[in-house]
């Protein structure tokens, strides 16, 4: 096992049970993550990016089942290797990992705090669940954490309720809770989507600082390519439950290989070509639904390089272009 490995996902398959038949949501997804690395999983609605992250913390909704694959978590504390897939989702081990070694932040800071407990209460709860400290100590740690994430007057804020916080403050409080046990992995699921640009910039700067300071690894789940370019080291592009391209952030933005990646990058407005007033190049067609039965590469109905009897039959094999830039597309076979 490589020394700095933190997480290894191998051939993960997750299905949705609908009236006794199965629909594949995640299909053969594999990736790994090293200590202190920031990766981004990019894709549109329904591509499976959130489901992947939920599987890592075993927080999948009941209808979703892990069919096969491994999620290996290399625990930093006792140097154990745990296969998260094999754990009882309500058992002690996953409880121990979740919150303590894996922190999570979500898009909706309002709905991830209970409205009837104070912010301080909810942070203390996490701390006392994982560390043997007194209530008073936990409260002091909470105040320190709120200070770390830049909440003004943390001594007063610790006794406030979530509704008294603004959107940006709530997001900060959620980050404070997620990092309270100094996790080695932070899963951030669209953490800035609901925020204004100025607040978004603050949160991104904060996450980068925390990542540098504590050496946390971050899995960033988003569809905002601007945020991806700014924060991540490696990028995984997902489409309909499969990874179609992975590479360093430079590979993906300067040398995209998969037609979907390339189209995505051309479909967003850039300030650089403001003067040229170029038309945006949209991707034709619609984002398919998970219930559409698409054979082969799921992008083929929208792809301008579609090759009949090839792309619509089997999913292409992985092509390694360089040591860390891979693409799943027949154009490169």
């Amino acid at each position, binding site marked *: 096992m490589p020394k700095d490995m933190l997480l290894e996902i191998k051939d993960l398959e997750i299905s949705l049970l609908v009236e006794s038949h199965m629909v594949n949501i995640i299909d053969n997804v594999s990736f790994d993550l090293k200590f202190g690395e920031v990766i981004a999983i990019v894709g*549109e*609605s329904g591509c499976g990016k959130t489901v992947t992250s939920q599987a890592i913390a075993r927080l999948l909704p009941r209808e979703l089942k892990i069919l096969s694959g491994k999620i290996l978590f290399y625990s930093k504390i006792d140097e154990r290797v745990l296969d998260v897939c094999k754990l009882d989702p309500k058992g002690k081990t996953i409880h121990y990992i979740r919150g303590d070694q894996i922190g999570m932040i979500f898009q909706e800071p309002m709905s991830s705090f209970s409205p009837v407990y104070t912010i301080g209460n909810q942070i203390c709860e996490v701390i006392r669940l994982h560390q043997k400290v007194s209530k008073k100590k936990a409260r002091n740690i909470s105040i320190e954490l709120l200070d770390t994430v830049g909440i*003004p007057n943390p001594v007063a804020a610790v006794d406030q309720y979530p509704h008294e916080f*603004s*959107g*940006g*403050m709530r997001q900060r409080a959620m980050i404070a809770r997620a990092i309270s046990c100094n996790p080695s992995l932070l899963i951030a699921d669209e953490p800035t989507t609901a925020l*204004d*640009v*100025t*607040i*978004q*910039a*603050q949160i*991104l*700067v904060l996450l980068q600082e925390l990542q540098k300071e504590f050496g946390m690894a971050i899995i960033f789940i988003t*569809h*905002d*390519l*601007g*945020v*991806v*370019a*700014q924060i991540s080291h490696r990028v995984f592009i997902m489409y309909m439950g499969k990874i179609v391209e992975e590479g360093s*952030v*430079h590979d993906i*933005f*300067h040398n995209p290989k998969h037609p979907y990646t390339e*189209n*995505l*990058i051309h*479909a*967003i*407005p*850039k*300030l*650089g*070509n*403001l*003067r*040229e007033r170029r*038309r*945006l*190049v*949209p*991707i034709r067609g*619609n*984002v398919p639904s998970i219930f559409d039965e698409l054979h082969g590469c799921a992008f083929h109905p*929208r792809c301008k390089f579609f090759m009949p009897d090839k792309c619509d039959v089997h999913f292409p094999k992985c092509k390694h272009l360089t040591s860390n830039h891979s693409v799943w597309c027949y154009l490169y076979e």
Partner: protein
Amino acid sequence: MAPLLEIKDLKLYYPVGRSGLLGKPITTVKAVDGVSFTIIRGESMGLVGESGSGKTSLGRAILRVVEPTSGKVLLHLGKKIIDITSINHDNLRRMWKHMQMIFQDPYSSLNPRMTVRDIIAEPMVANHIAKGSDLKDRVVDMARRCGLDVEQLSRYPHAFSGGQRQRIGIARALVLHPDFLVCDEPISSLDVSIQAQIMNLLKDLQQQLNLTYLFIAHNLSVVAYACDRVAVMYLGQLVEVAPTEILYYKPKHPYTESLMSAIPAPDPDNVMEPILISGERPNPANPPSGCRFHTRCQYVDTKCETQVPELIEYDSDHFIACHYAEELQLKGALEQPAAVKKEHT
């Protein structure tokens, strides 16, 4: 450069809180507080600002969908000038033929019990503009222009994806051939690959139908792409109005500067250096004295705390509400135009 709309000192106050069950409102939230600007015929005017700054309220007050507290909205139709804020309701309904709106959420802005054909036809039926085969033809024509499949018009909204639903909303708004369209966050709830389709559609329709847009959005890159001029709003007031390129690359108001510095460029080589504005957004029910931005401005001076800066035209077509607009040297958006960038490398 004929104006289409002149907005003069428009105010929209919402009463909040009551003393007792039927008591008078305790205080008012000044959602729009003395906004004046002009929208030129055929242009796209962008409106940006953080959430709660009053962008949507301003859009609604201009159309008089909500009753403004005071101020004037003058609509220029040929040689006639109509004050939207003073006409009676029958006339206002007639004016809405010229002014329409599309919304952010394509899921809740369409009636689920009506077929798409009926949804698009409804504005014409309500205004007694067309019936029979004429009505049908007009619906089909507009649906086609908006890129909808004419075969699917007898379906209900639930059968359509988000992007297609937004097309239905656009067709409904444009079927009366209005002059002015308020686009309130038209693409922010759509998938990235679909956003470009709708953006291009809005651009094409603008040329075909000679439309004027007020484009409200919080995504600054989208606004830059879509708009000729942009207005920046902060706590119910305009702080800067300028042609897009000038506003993005040479902003003159400190708030605009902080907005521009926070745009995450989709390019890993262009690392953003956001100017973080300190503090929380003040309560719009009780805005700060003087310049409303002074509590968070890094260039603040004693003058800013007491004197209210007016929105003044400094350069041609560049309006700024800041006491130090001429002295401050501010940074623009990070991403340089591609042409300039090449010269450097």
